[in-house]
Structures are given as structure tokens and as C-alpha cells.
């Protein structure tokens, strides 16, 4: 039997709050938080921003030297460690691994540096020596290790917008392989600091626009017109079940199964067939049937094409009227890119205790092609008898799909 992996701590920052109870409460209350902010070259754009206290766990020199993605990772990691009542010294700093999912990294720092040398007529002698340590792909995970003195393995997992789920899956795999005893893992996004991310989506006709920023992110709506970029982070403490039991710590949930696959069909357009295959493989890994899933946390980003293809994949696996409920968190805070999967899952995990499915907001008129015969929970939370299994979808560019199934710990 495969090693059982459990969640013992979660730390988040999101546009809906800097701790899980606050975030959950806003999801249940249907309160979104999208602001408009001016970015260089592109002007005012809607976005989801976090307002966590950066110097809660870092001194000002560390903040100045590092990256926003690093600060988000450090904040979420400390919050997760506190929630898991974890003593790093007791576990041993070399027994801990840090694995952080990222959609991209280095855009923010490179754009800032080009703006800096523009002030000096593009003379590269003014280019900062911090550029390379800030932009290496392992930066956010490496900053966590520097901050906490963790000496086990670390890396970032580049998996586009499937990175949040992939980070958790990778952490579980490292525990199963025995590479570490504690996996600090999940996903982060600093993408709201990069004009290039917004401009790229705009050129792709995939950037959301709405006079009311809080109405801009509207997956499954007939009126959806694209993505709202958000920053955020969700870092989990994962450990092997027997280790968690020995520590006597509260077990939040268990990883039941997962799957990762690739479309191999297009740079940006998703592929329903491969998404369905990924969900089926995750179900097989969890050794459960589709009807045992109680809630699907969708990836849908609010693009016309992406939402329809995910719904088509869900229909293929779960039927046109699934037995489970379906929701979407991006309607509240936008697309938190590398954090998305891990953050959306975090917002749904309290459902194991409160038996509430948080709603999807901003739908207005439902796109008939996204209709699942009333199973999408809209505008107000849905009370259910019990939630035992959550299936969390996460898909990204270059056709990366990551599906994670979490179960109530019993």
C-alpha cells in the first residue's frame, strides 16, 4: 500500500485575507476583492493584490534584497509552520524539503531592472548585482531556506498555472521517496508586478475588462471576457501519516490521489480529452469512483475557450449531471497563477469541517455550454451532509494538467 501523506499546516495570503479563516469567511460571504492598479506601459488594470505584513517574518534588508515571490513564500511558510506546530530544530533542518510551484519567475525583477537602467541611458554598469540571485528559478524556495536555515532539498516547480497542485504533488512524492520528513510545498505568484504578464494576456485577447473590477473575473458567465491576474500564495506542511501521528499534531486532511499529464497539442489552448484523462488517472490513483467525489474545485479562468473545455472534460468523467458540486474561486480573487491550485484548494479544505461548498460569484447569466445541470454552486454557499473527497483541477500553458484529490482524514 502506498505511503499515506497528510496535511498538517496551511499558510496563505490572498486578496481575500492573510489567514485561512478570514479567506474562508470571505468566500462563504461572497465577497470578492479585485482592485485597479496602474502598471508601467499598460496603465490601469484589474488585479488581485495581497496586503500581508511583509516584515512579520523578514527584516527590511531581506525584503529589499529578495523578491516579492520570496516574501510571499516566506510569509506563507511561517504561517503554515505555526499552524502545524512544527519545531524545525526538533525535526532537523536537513530533514525538511521546500518545494514551491511557480508559473514563471524573473519577469518582475527583469522588468524593474530594465526600467532602472533606462534612467541611465541603458548603461548596463547600473544593472544590479542582485539580478541573478533574484531571477534564478529556485529563488522563492531558496529564500524560504535562507530565512529559516533549512538545509534539506529545495526547488521550484515550473508548471505554468498547474504549479500550485504540482508543488503539493511533488512534496508528497519526495516524502514517499524518503527524501525528507517534512515537505513545505505549494505555490506562489508575484505576477501582478509584471506588466508583461498583463500585456501578454491582452495581446492574446485573454485579459479581462470590466468597469467594475470586482465583476471582472467571471468564470462560466456568458459575459466573461478573460483573466484577472492575481498574486497570492498557499504553502502546506505535508508529512507521512505515521510521522504526524507520532508528533500528535492535528491532521487537516489527507492526499488521496493525484495525476499529472500533458496535452501535447497547443501552447495555450487546453485539451478536454487530456484533462479528462488526468482526472480519471487521479481517481484511479485514489482508488475511488467519480461518484465518490463531493466537490470539484475548478480551474476555470474566465476565458471563453478554457472554461468550456474544462466543463466538457468534467462532463466526460462525471456525466452531464455530476453527483458532486462544483465551484470556482477565481471569481473572487482572479487567477493567482502559480499559487492558483494550492490557494483554491486551501479555500475549500475547511468544507471537510463546516460541510459548506463556497459559491462561485459573478456568473450572472450562465453560459449554456458551462451548464452542469445546477451542480455549479452560484452566489451563496451550499450546505451538504458531508464532504469526504475534493477534486482540485489545475491546468496550465504548454498543456500541463495536474489534478489532486484530497480526502477528509478519518
Amino acid at each position, binding site marked *: 500500500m502506498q505511503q499515506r501523506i497528510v496535511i498538517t499546516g496551511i499558510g496563505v495570503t490572498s486578496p481575500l485575507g492573510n489567514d485561512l479563516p478570514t479567506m474562508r469567511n470571505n468566500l462563504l460571504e461572497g465577497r470578492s476583492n479585485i482592485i485597479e492598479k496602474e502598471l508601467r506601459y499598460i496603465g490601469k488594470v484589474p488585479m488581485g493584490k495581497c496586503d500581508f505584513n511583509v516584515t512579520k517574518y523578514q*527584516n527590511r*534588508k531581506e525584503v*529589499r*534584497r529578495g523578491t516579492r515571490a520570496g516574501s510571499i513564500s516566506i510569509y506563507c511558510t511561517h504561517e503554515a509552520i505555526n499552524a502545524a506546530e512544527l519545531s524545525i530544530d526538533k525535526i532537523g533542518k536537513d530533514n525538511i524539503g521546500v518545494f514551491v510551484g511557480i508559473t514563471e519567475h524573473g519577469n518582475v525583477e527583469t522588468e524593474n531592472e530594465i526600467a532602472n537602467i533606462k534612467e541611465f541611458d541603458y548603461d548596463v554598469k547600473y544593472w*544590479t548585482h542582485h539580478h541573478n540571485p533574484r531571477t534564478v528559478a529556485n529563488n522563492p524556495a531558496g529564500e524560504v531556506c535562507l530565512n529559516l536555515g533549512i538545509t534539506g532539498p529545495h526547488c521550484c516547480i515550473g508548471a505554468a498555472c498547474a504549479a500550485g497542485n504540482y508543488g503539493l504533488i511533488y512534496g508528497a512524492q519526495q516524502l514517499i521517496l524518503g527524501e525528507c520528513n517534512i515537505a513545505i510545498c505549494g505555490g506562489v505568484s508575484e505576477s501582478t508586478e509584471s506588466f508583461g504578464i498583463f500585456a501578454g494576456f491582452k495581446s492574446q485577447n485573454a485579459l479581462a475588462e470590466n468597469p467594475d473590477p470586482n465583476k471582472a473575473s467571471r468564470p462560466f458567465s456568458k459575459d466573461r471576457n478573460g483573466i484577472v491576474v492575481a498574486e497570492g500564495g498557499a504553502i502546506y506542511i505535508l508529512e507521512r501519516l505515521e510521522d504526524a501521528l507520532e508528533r500528535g499534531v492535528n491532521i487537516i486532511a489527507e492526499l488521496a490521489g493525484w495525476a499529472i499529464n500533458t496535452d501535447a497539442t497547443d501552447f495555450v489552448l487546453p485539451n478536454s480529452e487530456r484533462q479528462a484523462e488526468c482526472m480519471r488517472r487521479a481517481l484511479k490513483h485514489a482508488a475511488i469512483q467519480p461518484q465518490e467525489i463531493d466537490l470539484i474545485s475548478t480551474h476555470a479562468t474566465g476565458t471563453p475557450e478554457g472554461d468550456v473545455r474544462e466543463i466538457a472534460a468534467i462532463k466526460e468523467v462525471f456525466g452531464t449531471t455530476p453527483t458532486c458540486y462544483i465551484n470556482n474561486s477565481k471569481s473572487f480573487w482572479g487567477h493567482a497563477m502559480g499559487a492558483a491550485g494550492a490557494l483554491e484548494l486551501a479555500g475549500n479544505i475547511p468544507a471537510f469541517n463546516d460541510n459548506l461548498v463556497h459559491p462561485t460569484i459573478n456568473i450572472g447569466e450562465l453560459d449554456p455550454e458551462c451548464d452542469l445541470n445546477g451542480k455549479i454552486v452560484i452566489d451563496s454557499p451550499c450546505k451538504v451532509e458531508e464532504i469526504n473527497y475534493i477534486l482540485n483541477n489545475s491546468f496550465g500553458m504548454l498543456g500541463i494538467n495536474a489534478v489532486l484529490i484530497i480526502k477528509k482524514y478519518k
Partner: protein
Amino acid sequence: MTEEEVRTIVVNIIEEIAPDEDYNNIVDEEPLRDQLGLDSMDFLDIVMELRKQYKIEVPESDYAELASMKSTVKYLLPKFNS
């Protein structure tokens, strides 16, 4: 420019780089590295800020001159006054 004025400029630059340190009790003759917890990247920041803000170049062969406040001021004073 006086030695005191140069010292103030240097303190302001370092304070921006390492804002959490105590700048009231610097012993000018002692190494800055130990007193302010500075590392090689911080010294490169000092060199960069001198370049950006005052167009002063500190070649790598002269980096040792920035070891203490006293040696830094002594080294920079003629550059500020040239």
C-alpha cells in the same frame, strides 16, 4: 565637502541598504562588516549607490578601502572634492 559631510552620505547609503541596523554607535575605526552585519553583496550595493547617486567609481582593486568608516571617508573625500 568636509569629512563629516562625506560620512553622512556614506551612512545614508548604508542605512538604505541595511535599514534595521543601529547607526548611532558606529566605531569609525572598526570594520563595518562586523558592526552592521554587511556582506559582499551589501558592499556591491554601496559601490552601486556611489555610482548612481554621485557618479563616483570604486574599482574592485580599491574595495578594501571601504572596510571601515574611517578608511571609507578618507578614500572618498578626494573623489567627492575632485
